């Protein structure tokens, strides 16, 4: 009986340790959320979503100011990045999973792992060399390319594992009725893996959407809304993470609270992405 009691006590101690570590993990998240909301909520008004930022004097003189150009720029750049990254990333993932014997496969794997481990700021540098230098100007396009470099290795990896989770027998069944390899992958394996594919893409999207470093010398930032939407692609463009950073290091208290408000928007965006990803993952199982 004594040993049973001892075991019971040990169980209890282990349990409380686990609860404690959960709290330690959750606490910073809660602190961040509360802090961000308390500081930013006051700046989240109509102007915030409808006005451009302008010069600091606007805020100091109490004229309307907001981050509409930042939100629009973020949407344009993030979706363009996604548009560039999905075909390339998924293509690489398909290659890794479906053609493991292909002679380019080992090289592809090494390159993808390297890209995945590369600091985000270096991806910005890469896009700077590839796009900004030839174009002669900072641009949303360059920002999108930099973010695509963030997304591609994540999408490639998640695509690979989503496809690998589909039983091999499905592919053989497809081949046995005379379908070519690529048709089997597109029409039987990928639909079966669709939740995993979307989940991976959302995770890559959310990761890239939160990155400021690759954007600092690619899309650069802009206090104003361009006259034409093409101006976002071809000229300096604002994005939430980079704007958050520059508002935070500015000397104006009004801009500080706008920075917190930008953080709220960014957080909500990322939480929606991850939430959808989690929902889809649960639905799959």
């Amino acid at each position, binding site marked *: 009986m004594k040993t049973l009691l001892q075991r019971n006590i040990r169980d209890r101690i282990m349990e409380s340790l686990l609860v404690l570590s959960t709290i330690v993990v959750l606490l910073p998240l809660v602190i961040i959320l509360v802090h961000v909301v308390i500081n930013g909520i006051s700046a989240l008004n109509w102007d915030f979503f409808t006005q451009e930022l302008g010069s600091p004097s606007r805020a100091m003189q109490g004229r309307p100011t907001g981050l509409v150009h930042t939100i629009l720029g973020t949407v344009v750049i993030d979706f363009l990045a996604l548009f560039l990254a999905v075909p390339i990333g998924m293509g690489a993932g398909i290659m890794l999973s479906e053609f*493991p*014997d292909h002679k380019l496969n080992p090289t592809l794997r090494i390159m993808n792992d390297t890209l995945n481990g590369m600091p985000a700021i270096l991806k910005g540098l890469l896009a700077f060399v590839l796009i900004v230098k030839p174009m002669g100007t900072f641009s949303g396009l360059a920002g999108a390319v930099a973010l695509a470099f963030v997304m591609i290795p994540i999408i490639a990896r998640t695509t690979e594992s989503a496809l690998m989770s*589909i*039983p*091999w*027998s*499905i*592919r*053989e*069944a*497809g*081949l*046995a*009725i*005379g*379908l*070519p390899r690529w*048709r089997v992958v597109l*029409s*039987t394996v990928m*639909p*079966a893996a*669709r939740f995993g594919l979307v989940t991976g893409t959302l995770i890559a999207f959310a990761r890239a959407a939160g990155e400021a470093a690759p954007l600092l010398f690619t899309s650069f930032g802009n206090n104003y809304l361009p006259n034409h939407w093409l101006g976002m692609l071809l000229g300096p463009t604002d994005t939430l993470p980079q704007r958050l950073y520059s508002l935070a290091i500015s000397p104006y208290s009004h801009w500080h609270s706008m920075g917190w408000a930008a953080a709220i928007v960014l957080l909500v965006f990322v939480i929606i992405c991850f939430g959808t990803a989690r929902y889809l993952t649960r639905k799959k199982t």
Partner: protein
Amino acid sequence: MNLIQSITSKVPTLPLFATSESRQASGAAEVKTSTGTNTAPGTGKAENKMRMETHDLSVHYGSTMGVRNVSLPIYDKQVLALIGPSGCGKTTYLRALNRMHDLTRGARVTGSVMLDGKNIYDSEINPVIIRRRIGMVFQKPTPFPTMSIYDNVVAGLKLVGIRKRNVLDEVCERALKQAALFDEVKDRLNSPGSSLSGGQQQRLSIARALAVDPEVMLMDEPTSSLDPQSTNRIEDLIHELKKQVTIVIVTHNMQQAARVSDKTAFFYVGDLIEYGPTNSLFTKPKEKRTEEYITGQFG
């Protein structure tokens, strides 16, 4: 027709007759790459010509041996049964016949597999076309998970660009009837293939293989997950199909082998031990191991 068959074979059911004619008229015939097979139905008397043949066929998985030096003829419009204890290489041999090992990592095939006098392993042969001519039903049912019953059956046509609804409808119904599944699913052709029971999924796999009108059909224990009634109907199907299609079937059921096949090959630990007409192999086996196996002394 040999002795055992005449005792055990059953008269094919009528609907199967009816559908076997409509298949000729249907657009599914377009898929066929060779037309050499369908000459003069009912010339069953003379020994059929050889359709396929393997010469010294060996398959290795890395350093493990799957089958070794198997040389066998496969006659046109006949049923060849592969029997032998578990792990003796029946599946391995069968998969070599439509180049399914191309996909298996580490699998190495040597020797040759002739189809109409051409080695299907020759470098200029396109395995996709080979597999369209040589269909396969696997040991485990494998419905395409995201597709409806209907789409599963016509996948081999639809996914290569045949989109005419009436053609697909016709093929779907014909194939499902042949596979003895039509009555059970005719009211829910649009529900997912994976919603069927294991035995129904197996018949769905059979229907899917039949839908593309293969010239040779490889069946790996097609009835192992079926109830006796469905098993009967699949055996009927084999009898019916034999008029147009060459069949190789793996089975663990000796009675089934005796009932459905013209020739039988007995495998043991990767070697072909004995091959011959089914009735003589079952009534007077030449090899001791064959006799032990078919009388149930091992395996």
